């Protein structure tokens, strides 16, 4: 059985705002499936006493003092923006969505 279905790839493409053609879906679903099956081999050697790794360094509590540092100028901030207006980043309209929080 495939590790990822064509429908799941289409769903992920939609979430990622990628315009994927039908042909590309066929190709990508196949390729992603191979990658996932390869990664799944790791799962075969995991043991119950080994927690999943999320960080490669064994550190905790790397914290910063609450002290103001210098910011970019608006010109610097906007210099890499594809488009800007009124000192703001200009993006195409977004419909049928709202903020995450």
């Amino acid at each position, binding site marked *: 059985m495939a590790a990822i279905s064509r429908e799941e790839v289409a769903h992920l493409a939609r979430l990622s705002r990628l315009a994927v053609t039908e042909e590309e879906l066929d190709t990508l679903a196949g390729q992603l499936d191979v990658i996932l099956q390869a990664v799944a081999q790791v799962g075969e050697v995991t043991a119950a006493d080994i927690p999943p790794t999320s960080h490669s360094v064994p550190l905790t509590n790397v*914290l910063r003092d609450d002290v103001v540092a210098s910011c970019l100028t*608006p010109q610097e*901030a906007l210099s890499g923006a594809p488009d800007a207006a009124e*000192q*703001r980043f200009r993006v195409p309209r977004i419909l049928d969505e709202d903020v995450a929080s």
Partner: protein
Amino acid sequence: MTTTLPAYDEVVARYEPVIGLETHVELGTNTKMFCGCPTDFGGAPNTRVCPVCLGLPGSLPVANRAAVEATIRIGLALNCSIAQWCRFARKNYYYPDMPKNYQISQYDEPLCVDGYLDVEVNGEPVRISIERVHMEEDTGKTLHVGGATGRIHGATESLVDYNRAGIPLVEIVTKPIPGAGAMAPEVARAYVTELRDVLRSLGVSDVRMEEGSLRCDVNTSLNLPGEQWGTRTETKNVNSLRSVERAVRSEMIRQASVLAAGGRITQETRHFHEDTGDTTSGRSKETATDYRYFPEPDLVPIAPDPTWVAELKAALPELPRLHRRRLQQEWGLSDPDMQSILNAGAVELIEATIAAGATPTAARKWWLGELSRRANETGVELADIGATPVQVAELQGLVDAGKLTDKLARTVLEHVVAGEGSPAKIMADRKLEVVSDTGALTAAVDEAIAANPAIADKVRGGKVAAAGALVGAVMKTTRGQADAKTVRELILERLGVQG
């Protein structure tokens, strides 16, 4: 819609509501959650941004110690357990209010879990269970342009300011609250009010709902008695305490009308409209898995030292509910009297007035009497009425010293509210001080006696009560600026009668 909505009484007679509240509070730290950009409100667009909060390649976030500490203190004040080890998570979504295409939040490992907040609703205690308190970052502000209304629908493009992106945000989530019945809207409001007071007492945020530093999402569902909980909706854009109550009530009525017509409730986000008091549909809610949360690789786990947590707990301030109870005892007030102070939002004002030297009785009299009346008439919050606790205490001091009568004090207070300065200054500027110059008063008394010989004779003849007319005449000539008791004594003395 032309359908007639059911009356609220009918709704609660037939259905049982379950509510839940998600509150976001912007912390009052100097800097953002993961970078050193300042957090103050306002500022020209994109002047408080850096490579970290813009999500530029190669930048790395580092968590703000003060924000972690504030979150732990909030958790402790809400009787939560503090996680010994937890991680940040990426919440992936494509929307330009976050430049990274994800928000750093916490997912299945919140910093604080399983707490509660005791609130009072109409004098009855209600315990609200807290599910979690977690850290995240605020989003940027998006301005939709090109549309007729400035709203998202009809807009042709959006302009984004990232000054707010990355400001530390704490999300406080209640467990579902069943069983509130008809009181559900009041319970929701009481919870947010109490939470706001707790956050304020901790000093972690300025908790201003109108400026968005405290924001509330309200979940509501209805079910028939004995049946499973219904499908819930999440109402956003609830920006005042009053709106919290209105949003729950209007959503209960709307859902009841859908259900009564045989319809189904869609799980969705709804937007509350301050002007009409009702909610309209947003988008259908994506399922949680669509955000593809995973542990944030750029931030190492947080493992608060238990000693640090214990120190923070020991240093918590007296929480508002206990504080109010102590004040009630100190002020010697009955429950209803205390309740009327709470309802008027006058606790802190009265407390400060007493601290400035007034007695509890006097402080309460001014804030609940004259000033509350004016606040109601003009529709402003009592705290914004224009008179300060120090001024009210000073005013009462002038009354106690015999320089102002109660009536004159009210006049002075009007001018204080109008912003003319301190009570003493207004009293002097407007010559409102009680006429205590005995010479001037005696002259006014003699004049009144001379002008009313018949009445004067009656008083001389023993009808002491008739002196009232003479007192009135003196008060008139002194424009009310004499103390009536003193005037009366003086009249009787001049007429040779014993009071």
